[in-house]
Structure formats: C-alpha cells, structure tokens
C-alpha cells in the first residue's frame, strides 16, 4: 500500500514513544480539587457552603465529644457545673464518658448478679468462637460449624445463662439486661426467622390453596402492622390464649413477637429470590425425578438464597435495630438499660442522657455497619459470574 517516498527514505519507529507526563494542571492535589470540588460555579458554591457548615459544626462537636469531655469521675459532681452543684466551671458542656465508664458493666449485663457475670462473658466468648469460623468463607467444616452455632450453642448458652444445672444458681430472665438481651433476642430472631421465612415463602407459592391462603394471611397481617403492636399482642394476648395458670416468661414473649415479625419480612425477601429463578430450573429438577423437598433443597433454594443475600442481611440489620423496641414493653435491652440509667440519682446531670444515648447509638451502629460491610463482602465472594 505504502508508496516509497521520492527520496527513498523510510521512517519507521521501532520503539514506543515514551509517554509524556500529563500537563502539570492535570495532576496533583490542585488539579484534583479543581476537578472534584470546583468543577463548575454551582459546584464551587456547594463546596464553599459545605465547608462553612463543617467549620461551623465540627469544632463544637469535637470539643463536646472529646476535648471538653470528662473521662474519669465517680459521681455526678464531675459532670455538672458549679451552678448545678458540680465542679465544672459555669457554661461548661461536654460529654460525660465517666458516666458510661461507670455504667459499662450494667450496660453489658443489666442486673445480672455480679458474681455470676463470668457466665454471660463465657457465652459471649463461645458466641464469638462458633460464629467467627462460620463467617470466614475459607474455614472448613461448615456444616458442623453451622450445627454448633445454630443448635448446640443456643442450648449451652441457655443453660449457662439461666442456670439450675451443674450446681449453677438460677438467674431469672428478669435480671438479664443490656447488650446481652439485645444480642440474645436478635440471635434467636435470626435463627428462627430464616427457616420459618423459607417455609412461609414456599407456602405462599404452594399449589395447595389452603396453605397458600394461610401463609399470605400471616405474612400480610404481620407486615401491615408496626412491630410495637406485635409486641403488645405477644405480651398481652399470649397469656390470654394459653390455659389458665400457665405463665409465659416476659422475655420469651418478646422473643416470640420479634421472631414472628422477622419471619414475615424474611418470607417476602426469600419469595423475591424464588421468583427470580427461571422456570427451567424447576422443570429440570422435576424431570430428574426429584421430590418436592429435594428439588427445593438441592436446586432452587441454594440459588434463590444466593440472589437475595443483601435482602436477608438487610432484614437482619432491621431486626437488630428493632430489638430496641422491646424497651417499650418495659424490658431492659441495651437502649432500655441506658434509659434506666438516666434515673440514677448519683449521676443525674444535664449531659448524661445525651452521652448515654450517643453511646447506645454507637454500639448499635457498630454492629449494623459491620453486618452491612460483611454482606457486601460475601456478595462479591459468592458472585460466580451469573450476573449479566
């Protein structure tokens, strides 16, 4: 194609030209700022406004939370101004972390007897030891591990916490409290809602009209009402439904309420996954001669659950947050116990409620945020490339 130039010389470059550096306006922090912060007039105005707002809020916030905060102290005088009968100068305001430090054990275990607190601590440890390998995808023996975490561990924990066997003194559930209760209720809720939710979702898609009707009625009724009414229902009506004289533990009633509520939501999430499975998968399983339960357990569910992992984890997160509602039916979960501690005459100051609430909010945030991060990780890990 190429014609020889008239002078007979060819010029062919044999090496790639070395890439030049981009112009200096295009690299470095200044260029970054120009691109990302001051891209247009509107962006510039937004950036300036946001910076002003941050400058207005952040120093006060940091001062309140850390600089002016009281870290050590034994009673309310440390966190009250002189006018309020304390030792701080008038006009002082800051977080009272000394209060949280003093109440820390109370926040973790509630009124659990001090001498027996090694038992909940041991339960926390077993909990962490069985759950951690379950959550790490590479750890072996998943089935045994799951059995241990979902069946063996709750039983052991119950006997450890409640006592009455092996010479352990009985600790009534009324004494349980704090983070312990929050974790137990959410753990039981999760362990119950997943299988029950699967059954309800299957029931809702069943060919048998009576079963379908029952499942739809249960799911829609529970999903249509606020959790607090379900809790009221469990705590006021359950005793009415049972034979006279039987008493159901208050703790158990709350757990039943939360589990019912979570199961209905879980059922809808799983139904979403079931609906996304192509019909050919069902027909393929049928043509292999698999029974209903084989078809669902071996072919459909593994695919469906994988599809809706984000939804399942969102339900878990929602439920973990919702456990705080049991404080309304006068149970002492983390939020309930933090609120109860405001009434301690030894610590009543203007700043203790806010400090306590910030602590409770932070603990909840820590758990929920880790769950959502873990869900992102596992979603990527399980993604076997079926997504288009």
């Amino acid at each position, binding site marked *: 194609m190429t014609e020889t130039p008239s002078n007979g010389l060819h010029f062919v470059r044999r090496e790639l030209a070395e890439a030049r550096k981009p112009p200096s306006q295009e690299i470095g922090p200044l260029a970054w700022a120009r691109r990302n912060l001051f891209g247009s007039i509107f962006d510039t105005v937004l950036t300036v406004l*946001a910076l002003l707002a941050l400058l207005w809020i952040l120093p006060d916030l940091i001062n309140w939370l850390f600089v002016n905060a009281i870290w050590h102290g034994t009673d309310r005088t440390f966190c009250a101004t002189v006018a309020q009968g304390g030792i701080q100068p008038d006009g002082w305001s800051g977080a009272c972390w000394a209060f949280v430090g003093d109440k820390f054990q109370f926040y973790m275990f509630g009124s659990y007897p001090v001498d027996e607190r090694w038992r909940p601590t041991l339960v926390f440890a077993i909990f962490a030891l069985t759950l951690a390998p379950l959550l790490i995808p590479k750890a072996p023996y998943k089935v045994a591990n799951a059995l241990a975490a979902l069946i063996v561990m709750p039983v052991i924990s119950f006997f450890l916490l409640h006592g009455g066997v092996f010479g352990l003194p009985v600790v009534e559930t009324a004494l349980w409290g704090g983070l312990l209760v929050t974790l137990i209720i959410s753990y039981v809720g999760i362990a119950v809602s997943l299988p029950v939710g699967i059954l309800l979702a299957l029931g809702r898609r069943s060919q048998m009209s009576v079963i379908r009707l029952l499942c739809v009625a249960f799911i829609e009724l529970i999903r249509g009402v606020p959790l607090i009414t379900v809790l009221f229902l469990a705590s006021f009506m359950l005793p009415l439904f049972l034979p006279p004289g039987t008493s159901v533990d208050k703790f158990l009633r709350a757990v039943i309420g939360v589990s019912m509520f979570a199961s209905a939501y879980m059922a809808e999430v799983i139904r979403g996954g079931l609906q996304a499975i192509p019909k050919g998968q069902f027909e393929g399983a049928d043509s292999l001669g698999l029974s209903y339960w084989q078809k669902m357990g071996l072919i459909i569910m593994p695919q469906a659950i994988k599809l809706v992992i984000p939804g399942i984890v969102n339900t878990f997160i929602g439920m973990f947050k919702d456990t705080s509602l049991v404080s309304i039916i006068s149970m002492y979960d983390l939020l309930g116990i933090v609120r109860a501690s405001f009434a301690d005459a030894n610590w009543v100051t203007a700043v203790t409620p806010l400090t306590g609430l910030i602590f409770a909010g932070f603990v909840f945030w820590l758990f929920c945020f880790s769950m959502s991060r873990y869900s992102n990780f596992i979603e990527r890990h399980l993604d076997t490339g079926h997504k288009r």
Partner: protein
Amino acid sequence: MTMEEADLSAPRQPARVAFYNDPFWRSLAYQVLTAAILAGLLVWMWLNTLENLKRANLASGFGFLQSRAGFDLAQTLIPYSSDSSYFRALEVGLLNTLAVAALGIVTTTILGLLVGVGRLSSNWLIRKLATVYVEGFRNIPLLVIIFFWYKGVLNALPNVRESIVMPFGMILNNRGFYFPAPLFGEGSIFILAALVAGIVAAVIWSRRAKAQQMATGSRPPVFWVNVALVLGLPVLVFLVLGAPLTFDPPVAGKFNISGGSFIGPEFMSLYLALSFYTAAFIAEIVRAGIRGVPKGQTEAAYALGIQPGRTMRLVILPQALRIIIPPMTSQYLNLTKNSSLAVAIGYADLVAVGGTILNQTGRAIEVVAIWLAIYVSISLATSLFMNWFNRKMALVER
C-alpha cells in the same frame, strides 16, 4: 379432524397408583389436615381466652368505647377533653398518627431526594457528606434517634422565662414551639373555593396544552400559567374580600404562654426523627433509581440536542420514577408504621392512646384488634393504590 389427531388428543389411561400416592388426594389430605389442626388450635385458644376472661372478671365487646375516657391528651387536632369517650380518644390518636405521618413524608421526601442526588454528585465533598449521612442514619435504631431529639436536643432548649423569641411572634422553648394562630374571618370559604377552582383550571389547561403540543408541535406556557391559577386565584379572592385573616399571636407570660398555636416537643422530636431516619433509606432508593436508567438515554437525549436540564426532567426522571416509586411507597408505609414509636415519648398517636385505654380497661383483645384493623387497612389501601399506579406507569413494551 383426522383419525390420528383424535387418537393423540384422546385422554390416555393414567398409570394406576394407589390413592395415597395420587397428588390430588395427597394435597387434599395435607390441606384438610392443616385446616383441622389450625381450627383445633383456634378453638382451644378461644376456650382458653373465655376461661381467662371469666377468671379475671373482664367483660368483652366494643361497648366500652362509648364510656368516658377520663384522661387528657396534650395535643389534639379535634376538640377533646377528659369527658370525651374512648372512641373520641382513638379518633384523636388516629388523626395524630396521620398528621405526623403526612408531614414526615413531605419532609423526608425532600431530604431524601437531596441526599440521594448528593450521593451521585460530581462534587467529592458533597458525595462524602451524603454517604456519611446515609451510613450513619441507616445503622442506628429509630428509637435512639427519637430519644436523641427528645432528651438531647429539645430538652436543652431554654425554659419558659428565657424563651427564644423569633420573628413573626414565634416563640421556642422547652415546652414546645409557639406560633401565631391564623383566624379566618367571614367569607374565607370562598378562598378555599378559589383554590379548588384554580387547581381544576390548571389541570384542564395542562391537558389542553398537551393536546395542542401533540397536534401542532408548539407548546403553550404551562408552568407559569398554572402557578398563576393555583396561587394567584386564591390570593386575588383574598384581596377582593378585604383580607379577612387575623393572627392570634402567642403572648409570653411569666410562667406560661397564652394564645397562639403550639407544637409540643413530643411531636417535634418524633417528626424530626422520622424524617431524618427515613430520608437515609429514600436517598438510597433515589440513587438506585437514577443509576438504573441506562447512560445511553442521556447520550441519546444530548445527541438530539436536548439541554441537560430538560434531559434530566423529560428523559431521565420519568424513567427513574418508575424504578423509584414502588420502594418509595413502602418507605412511606414504614414511616407511617414507625410513627407508632410515639408511645415511647408520649405523643398521643393511635398506639399511645390505645395503650392508655388498654391499661385503664384491660380490654387487650379489643384494643389490639382495633390497632390491627386500622394499620392493616392503611397498608391495604396503599398497596391497592400502588398496584393501580404501577399498572398505569408500567412500561408499554413491544
């Protein structure tokens, strides 16, 4: 019909199976069994309940709703006193629930839209701030946020004597927010009529404008005409009538504030917490909706020479809304249901009022039944509306 086809379509003799292996009989047996067990359980629970009620000497039935309530409610939208009936108290509660839900939905939509668009902003700072907002509020229980506003922020407001006085006679202190109450004089009904007439006229004008655009291609001004019709008409009538509106401003006394209208701290904290919390979820829905519209749509619109603003309004948003609206409604429903947390801080909503009645009368079954009936009907009404709306909005494909 030929002979062969008839043979093929003739029912084949089914393989003989024992009736207990026949799917039909099997499923029938399962269903009858389930129904029987459930019916047995219900009867057993019913008998237990009757026995329990008899032992506790409790009556049943909804007759008690007509008796005197005997408790006061702080904030009511309709006249109510402690002499009113339980039924009236429940009405007040329902209205309060609807009021906080309606206001919360408006605020949370605006806030959620802003944050959701902020998460997609090209501005790094705005994007990060929006992310911090979403990740912060999504992961904290609503109840903590409610208490945060109630105990932390609103309790920190000054007491009555040191009230913050704001322009237009508004007063803010730790008892609540006071503002001038509008008093409508003679003929105010005509202003309302003018508003309705304005809206009707605006709808008609929009339709005609659309018809004209379809027919001729030129579009008459719609937005400003409609603004004039909806806002201008009532204002005109208002002025013609001689401005029949006076205000009753709150007057700060030494220990109390008299006159004016007032919003209690309970309402404020519930309303703020609901708006802030739900906005985090709405922001994520808005983000997903806008990102769900393929980029080719924007590029195609630009290629046709449509300006960026109009591209957003006429091309992207209508398609994004189709993705956004269903999850958004379920968030609105969540907000309405979450307003039941009012009971924790004593705002007189449906659940709080019901709880008081339950404690006074011990009519657990009746009160819980009323709650379930009302909330389920709100949910059902919303989902019926949504189904209708979805059908209307559904993409008409080839």
